[in-house]
């Protein structure tokens, strides 16, 4: 029998993995991949709560769909920013992108 707590524990571990990637990676693209993992962890929570806490409604799945859409927006803008930074600074390592004016 899989309970709600099992899904929440899985989601917590995936969130921690994403957080570790965001904190320790130097590459801007790898940081965005960590953010995608964290958003996926949140989506697991939303869908799991939908099934176990409010099965009569689909609001949790609606939330998850909106989060997926906004994650696509975030990926598009974030990767465009990485490309723009690479074009002008010739690096995508976030610890080397430290100029305030160009």
């Amino acid at each position: 029998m899989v309970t709600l707590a099992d899904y929440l524990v899985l989601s917590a571990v995936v969130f921690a993995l994403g957080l570790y990637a965001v904190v320790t990676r130097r590459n801007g693209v790898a940081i965005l991949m960590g953010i995608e993992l964290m958003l996926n962890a949140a989506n697991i929570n939303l869908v799991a709560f939908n099934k176990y806490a409010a099965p009569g409604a689909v609001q949790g799945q609606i939330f998850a769909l909106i989060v997926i859409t906004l994650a696509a927006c975030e990926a598009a803008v974030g990767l465009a920013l990485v490309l723009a930074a690479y074009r002008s600074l010739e690096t995508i390592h976030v610890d080397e992108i430290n100029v305030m004016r160009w």
Partner: protein
Amino acid sequence: MTGEAIAFYGLAAVILVSGLVVVGSPNIVHSAVALVPAFLGITGIYILLGAEFVAGIQVLIYAGAITVLVLFVIMLTEGGTGLRQQQRNEQGPIGASVAVAIAVLLIAGVTHTTWGRGAGTLPAYTPGAIGRSFLGTNLLAFEGTSIVLLVSLIGAIIIARKEE
């Protein structure tokens, strides 16, 4: 052990192993490709939870579009992704301890809480219910999301465009 439990633990193992490759691999292309099994495992979790429509969207947008987008950007920014490049900063131990602390905190909170069960059952066919909800109760959120999507895509094109 029921079939549901076997499926859950199998999918969780797939997600965690590929997640470890995503955060730990020194080769950024391996990280990006390992995103695909992680997202597909999460798709399986959605199917276990009775969310078929969210599972389909997850495959289309995450496993399909976002992974390809990430791979394209890695290809276009070769200078930052070569194998010679140091991929991690010097915050490894601090980052690991923060991540482990947050995971332990969340897991302790989750397992020590008594979660109530809601009444009712999931609709047998969730895409219909989701569509009616998006064009009824959640119409404002739906339209707002569309505007955000449009604005962010135009913004992405303008940011990524070459300057004259």
